[in-house]
């Protein structure tokens, strides 16, 4: 191969724009950071393996950019500046088209009960008037470009409008809500100095947007462990209003409560927990999506959904907004006058409801990739190891004769895994270690072998809480948990995870689970997957490998032989 480099002059340019609108960004390039900062406002990070990250330009990402005041020319100029090759014409046309749609429908306040909708072109009004779902919302047509809708239809209108390809520029403004004295402490109750980091402050400011109607709704995208909760508290301090916080689990509710107590002036009497066991409604109330969407029968009412209107909330925070369930979306349609903050590590939804997130919660208002935070030392590195081990020779015959399902089980419960777990635990002595598995028998065996506690789905809540607390405090260094248990909890201090068995779930499930397990700490986190060689486990492990590599984790594979294991 020759030494001449094709397009040498452009080689420093780190991005490649594909014709489907995806952007490949070369990480090793000197211009990487500049290019990333340039494209991030109008694209979504899809995957970030070691060498080339993939971003995606979509109408939503363009509207997100347009919402911040960016223009089409600016987007194209940024792409051209960093693009190694010519930008495909189709991509430019699509960007143009998306920009031309932004701002073509604006919502303005008329009076308390009405909203004026202003459209850029007459044909948009015609399109709206010919849509059988939108037309009933229209109360009065004022001119060829203006009409009136009732205030309570604000969410529904925006939701339907985006389905026909028009994002609404919502400038109606918000209800201020019930005031609340809310301040962040400079020193946490735990004694640690506390203050928002620079990127957290930026996220808060972007959401606030100087108090203009453009702010007050939006999504902050930050990686796991980077302090999204802190951003939420920063926004609460800015607004000083009663706040409803929606989380994914009871454990997350409790964590919010402990963080609020630790880092703000709020006292216990101001913070309410609205979960299965407790139903408190206080100036700051924290609940779960599950309780909001609970109903006795499939056709019954969502009994707890009234919580959204139970108080004059001035702010609603949606934690992990990418898993927001559909009924909560529906409820959110009705509360568009409330300020809404979404917090997430990814905007990608398995159910493809990104549009709903955009129209009902708000556009992305802040995004920073985790690699940048890692480089700046805010979060620590995470490494994944796949340990491949053979099946003991005496089990081979039984394994070959078994059906696929049984083969998977035999491979999962490979006795060599027990030896390996012991070695890994020994190697990471002093660290908090989590052992995760699918089969209870195997987990019981490990628990008794290592003499450490086991948490399964059947462990009662008080014991669970006690064990988590002890684990967090470092009193219990090793905890064995079943898959069911580990998905439902948040374990902030685990720095080592060993997955001894289990299948690969959905991308979101894995992201959630592994994201929490690998929640970056101040030192390197390690994730081990133990896999029996030449078994169906390898297929699941491969999917996990690809997923983790795409998340940017370093992934190593170690093949152990009989000799290694015997020694």
């Amino acid at each position: 191969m020759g030494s001449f480099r094709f397009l040498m002059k452009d080689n420093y340019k780190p991005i490649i724009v594909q014709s489907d609108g995806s952007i490949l960004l070369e990480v090793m390039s000197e211009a990487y950071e500049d290019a990333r900062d340039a494209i991030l406002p109008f694209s979504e990070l899809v995957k970030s393996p070691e060498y080339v990250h993939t971003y995606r330009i979509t109408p939503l990402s363009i509207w997100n950019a347009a919402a911040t005041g960016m223009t089409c020319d600016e987007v194209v100029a940024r792409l051209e500046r960093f693009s190694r090759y010519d930008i495909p014409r189709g991509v430019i046309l699509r960007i143009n088209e998306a920009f031309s749609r932004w701002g073509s429908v604006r919502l303005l306040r008329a009076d308390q009960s009405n909203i004026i909708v202003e459209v850029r072109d007459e044909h948009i009004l015609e399109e709206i008037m010919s849509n059988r779902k939108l037309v009933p919302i229209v109360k009065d047509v004022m001119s060829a470009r203006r009409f009136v809708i009732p205030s309570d239809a604000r969410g529904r209108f925006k939701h339907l409008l985006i389905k026909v390809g028009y994002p609404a520029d919502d400038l109606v403004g918000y209800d201020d809500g019930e005031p609340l004295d809310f301040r962040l402490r400079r020193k946490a109750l735990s004694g640690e100095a506390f203050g928002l980091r620079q990127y957290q402050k930026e996220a808060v400011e972007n959401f606030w947007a100087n108090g203009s109607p453009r702010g007050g709704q939006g999504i902050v995208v930050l990686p796991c462990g980077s302090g999204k909760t802190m951003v939420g508290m920063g926004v609460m301090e800015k607004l000083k209003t009663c706040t409803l916080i929606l989380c994914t689990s009871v454990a997350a509710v409790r964590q919010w409560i402990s963080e609020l107590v630790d880092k703000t002036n709020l006292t216990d009497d101001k913070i309410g927990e609205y979960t299965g066991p407790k139903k408190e409604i206080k100036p700051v109330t924290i609940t779960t999506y599950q309780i909001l969407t609970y109903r006795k029968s499939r056709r019954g009412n969502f009994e707890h959904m009234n919580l959204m209107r139970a108080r004059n909330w001035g702010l609603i925070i949606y934690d992990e907004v990418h898993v927001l369930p559909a009924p909560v979306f529906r409820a959110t349609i009705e509360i568009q006058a409330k300020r809404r903050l979404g917090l997430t590590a990814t905007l990608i939804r398995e159910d493809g409801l990104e549009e709903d997130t955009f129209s009902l919660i708000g556009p992305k208002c802040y995004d920073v990739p985790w690699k940048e935070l890692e480089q700046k030392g805010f979060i620590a590195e995470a490494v994944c190891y796949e340990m491949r081990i053979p099946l003991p020779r005496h089990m081979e015959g039984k394994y070959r004769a078994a059906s696929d399902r049984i083969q998977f089980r035999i491979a999962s419960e490979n006795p060599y895994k027990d030896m390996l777990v012991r070695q890994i635990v020994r190697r990471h002595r002093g660290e908090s270690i989590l052992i995760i598995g699918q089969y209870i028998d195997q987990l019981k065996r490990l628990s008794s072998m290592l003499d450490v506690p086991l948490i399964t789905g059947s462990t009662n809540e008080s014991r669970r809480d006690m064990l988590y607390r002890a684990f967090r405090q470092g009193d219990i260094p090793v905890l064995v948990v079943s898959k069911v248990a580990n998905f439902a909890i948040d374990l902030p201090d685990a720095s080592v995870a060993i997955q001894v068995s289990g299948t690969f779930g959905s991308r979101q499930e894995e992201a959630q689970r592994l994201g929490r397990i690998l929640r970056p700490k101040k030192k390197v986190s390690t994730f081990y997957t133990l896999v029996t060689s030449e078994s169906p486990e390898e297929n699941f492990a491969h999917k996990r490998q690809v997923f983790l590599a795409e998340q940017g984790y370093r992934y190593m594979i170690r093949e152990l032989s009989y000799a290694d294991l015997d020694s």
Partner: protein
Amino acid sequence: MRISTAELINSLPPYMLELMSSRIMGEKTDAETLTRALGDAKMLGRVLAGLSPEDRAVLEDLRDLGGQVAWHVVMGIYSDRLDEIKERLERLGNLGLVFQGGLTGRDPLILLPTVEPILESHCKNILARDMDWAEREGYCISEHVLMINVIQSRKIRCRPGMEPFKKGWAILEETLGSLMDVERVYKELVRLGCLEEKEGRIVVNSGRSMALAMDGDIHYRLWRFFESLKHIPGLDSRIYTLISDGAISLDRLKRVLFLNMKRFSPDMPNAEDTAGTLVDLWTGLGILQVDASGKWVRFSPDVYSALSTGNIEVSYSYYSEDVIVQPNMEVLVPMEFDPLDHLNLGEVADLKKADVVNIYRLTKASILRSLIKGWIPEKIQQFLERISKHEVADNVLQTIKGWAKSLKEAHIIKGTFLVFPGGKDNVPRGLEEILPGIYQVPEKCEINVISFLNKKGVMVNSPGTRAEVDEHINWGRALPLKTDIEEEDKVPRLDGVYPYGMLIPLPYGPKRIEVFREAIKQGKGLIIFYPKMGYGEIQMKRINPVYVYIRSGVPFLEAFCEDTGEGEVFDINKIRAIFKQD
């Protein structure tokens, strides 16, 4: 063979020589003197300089048509302004620059041969090396390599005649449609023999595909060049001679193409557009390079070298080294990647998306496929490490090793016995086990058994699965390109050659008689061209017409002949032409 000026002058009838020399030189001379005068470059240069650009353009057209051109071609080229062109030709004929064979007025035109080099020197003295030439970007067979790689990894069924079914086209369109004209590339691959039909499936001929990738880029470009001109025999040589190692203006090249297309087929519609399309195609393919001003073109050096010497020089300088093997098993490949390595990559990885940068993925199935084709894990590892811009992640190499290890092997002997000690689970149902681990393969079921086992991750060694032996592509046209094959329009010499416009061919029917009645009325003398009795040889006679009469339906002219000094009767139907006198 081209006619020389001397031959041309010698073809003039003696009486014409007199007339012409006195008109051009002011006195009657012999053929040799006239030849010398018409070969005087200085004199011709002065004459040419005095021409209007339009008249000169006509001369240039004649030159680009090879110096002589059939009359019906002239009519085809100038169909929209025939009268104007006739006037121009007449002017040029009077200057002794353009001739016409025969007396019918429909015979070929001939350009005075000595004019050609003078015209040429005025427009060609351009040295290609003095200009800035745009470097060619990318290579042309990347599309073909991509399609081969898609077909390698997907099962595409086809009808007899290698026409893929609708689903097959859909697969190709979906994967490659945004980048290329899928149908054209597919058909080209079929014609080049890189794709074949096997048991109703399109399969890749490895040998020919390798040949395409190895020296294919330049070969392919030349092939496209010849293919684009194959409907006009000899035009490729003509273009090659015309441009040679120099440069030519883009406009002239288009005009030459237009003229030659019209020469081959005077009724060809849209010849002008077709000429433009051809030039665009050649510049797009890198056959031609365009200079910085965008007005001049030349043959790309590698193309010219191949055309003139027949040596195909494979250049590596265009190939990009920016291949990235990602830890998530993706391989990102730019379009300008070395086609041979690109083809090899298609054996070990599946093409997922063809785009500005192509995205491949290493999968268990692709690794299995490569092992069947004779790769070994170490070779795959070395290959990936060699092509990758960065270090290949450990997990990628380990995963490939793991997949390779999990692969089971089976053998088919003589298409009848399957030797597979790997357990009955993976053996197709219905196969009879004649000895432990040896199964009988039913007749004509070998392919199905192999396909079944491949799906189960079993590599089957059988004579049918071995790679094809080295095969070469038949690129068609032989190189170097010979320049001496030129088809000229035949010039009938029977009636001699005349300066264009000095003769007036007589119209048929009553109009012919009218010419003579008019001359009688005006009392004008005429010079007529009339066949000698018995021989058919044309002779020129100076006559004074006296009387026109018709006997038995045949018109006759009674006239006084100045050459013989006697009265003579001429059969008007036999008079071939009259000389145009001022």
